[in-house]
């Protein structure tokens, strides 16, 4: 099963809508609760990151017998220093982001913690976050 969702920059009203639909999809096929929660927490963090830091992007959701794969793509401006961005507490977010309960530099570390596999590519044209969650219990 493959799905795709648009993510709009700076739109906090719609932020989380893609992750919400991904959650409903996973619940409908009765995947283990713990796996759903890990996917949703990482997906929500990644979605918020696109809302906060980019000019907009999209996410693809791919469900197979073996794994759930999420790919977040945005159109820039990219992460200047990936090593720094992966550190807990490092953030370039603004007051608006803090007022919405995010932007404390925990997004990428939380994604890494939740996912079984995480790859991050970024340049000035955009960022690609690749997250894989294995369906171990099957």
């Amino acid at each position, binding site marked *: 099963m493959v799905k795709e969702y648009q993510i709009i920059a700076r739109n*906090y009203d719609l932020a*989380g809508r893609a*992750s919400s639909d991904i959650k409903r999809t996973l619940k409908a096929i009765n995947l283990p*609760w713990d796996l759903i929660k890990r996917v949703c*927490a990482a997906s929500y*963090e990644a979605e918020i990151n696109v809302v906060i830091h980019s000019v907009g992007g999209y996410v693809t959701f791919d469900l197979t017998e073996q794994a759930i794969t999420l790919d977040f793509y945005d159109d820039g401006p990219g992460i200047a220093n990936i090593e720094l961005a992966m550190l807990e507490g490092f953030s370039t977010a603004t007051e608006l982001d803090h007022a*919405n*309960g995010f932007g*404390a530099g925990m997004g990428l570390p*939380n994604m890494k913690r939740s996912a079984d596999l995480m790859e991050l590519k970024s340049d000035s044209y955009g960022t690609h976050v690749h997250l894989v969650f294995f369906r171990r219990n099957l």
Partner: protein
Amino acid sequence: MKLSEIIKQFHCHVYTPELAIDKEINYAFCADLMSDALMVLNSVKDDRILKESILITGLTTNQSIRTAEMLDMEVVLLVRGKIPSLKVVELAKELKIILLATDYTMFNTSGLMYKDGIKGIIYNQQW
């Protein structure tokens, strides 16, 4: 502790009266930063614990409701007399999340709940 007792003790305004079933609340977590809630509550391995939990926050935006949704939590308590906007209340109703609000501060709310035996959720601690 029953949810109805919490509503009474903290003089809560119930924004979702149609959802307010009287359920048992035994655990709690408080944060204004939703990344912290996602990280700590995501470490809970037993779904029963989150079903019996309350998220205490001063964040009145959609994101507190979305965070509860992602974690399968059913009750959000807004503190410090914060008033959510209509769209936040509508989202809570749509996602079947009980939304409450109290004038008590986060510290006092948490302290009183702790005194009444509600346990605080800790990262990676399983009960």
